[in-house]
């Protein structure tokens, strides 16, 4: 069978890719999708552990995570629309009036 550590490695790699995406891309869409990657990495973990621990908690938790992701995406996209309407830009490094 598949060792649990494989799943952890996969999810860790996915999480890392997500982090790198968040930190390096300028486009806020990609940043948000990178955050979704991080959430999915956690989901893989949760479901895998749920399976190996014979406990449903992980799976149920994953359902909640997906719900949260949906709500978050809705508000996030609304803010992006607002941004592009107000400033005509969706690049993270162009929002820099608040600092110091």
């Amino acid at each position, binding site marked *: *069978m*598949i*060792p*649990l*550590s*494989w799943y*952890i490695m*996969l999810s*860790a*790699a*996915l*999480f*890392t*890719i*997500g*982090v*790198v*995406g968040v*930190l*390096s*891309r*300028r*486009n806020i*869409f*990609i940043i948000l*999708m*990178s955050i979704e*990657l991080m959430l*999915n990495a956690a*989901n*893989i973990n949760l*479901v895998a552990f749920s*399976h*190996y621990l*014979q406990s*449903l908690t992980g*799976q*149920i938790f*994953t*359902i*909640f995570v*997906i*719900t*949260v*992701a*949906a*709500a*978050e*995406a*809705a*508000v996030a*996209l*609304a803010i*992006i*629309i*607002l941004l*592009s309407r107000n400033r005509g830009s*969706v*690049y*993270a490094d162009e929002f820099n009036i608040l600092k110091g």
Partner: protein
Amino acid sequence: MIHQIIFLYFATVILVSALLMITRRNPIHSVLFMLLLFFHIAGLFVLLNAEFLAAVQLIVYAGAILILYLFVVMLLNVDQERQSVRANRFWPWVAAFGVLIAGEILLLISRSTFPGDAGKTMATPGAGVMELGQALYTQYLVPFEIASVILLVGLIGAVMLAKKAVKE
């Protein structure tokens, strides 16, 4: 053995499409790679006997959330992206940082012990959904209701922010 091969296939596609997702210049391409990734994660869920979650992953994540992204990407001007710089000027550092994180996690895994009963499957296939439903509506009723509130928050927040300003 066959399971391991299937896993490796899923894992490879997931990682490759994730990498492609964060490196594509065109956001629409990124969304499409994301879609591919979600399908394969759903596949992993099936491999882990979580059929219901696989379905949720496809219907909600891929079907709803991602499509929402796609809509907004297309709503806004995507052509702009083709001419501009993809990553901020720190990206090599960030990439190195990613390697650092990955290294730390590898170290962690090498030091960890995992539950000994690795590889067992959940009861009988199919029964998982029923148990899941039962647990969700009894023991997890409170968070389930709270989760419905969070959707309401998302709804109100999105409406409030994105609606057109009223003229006085």
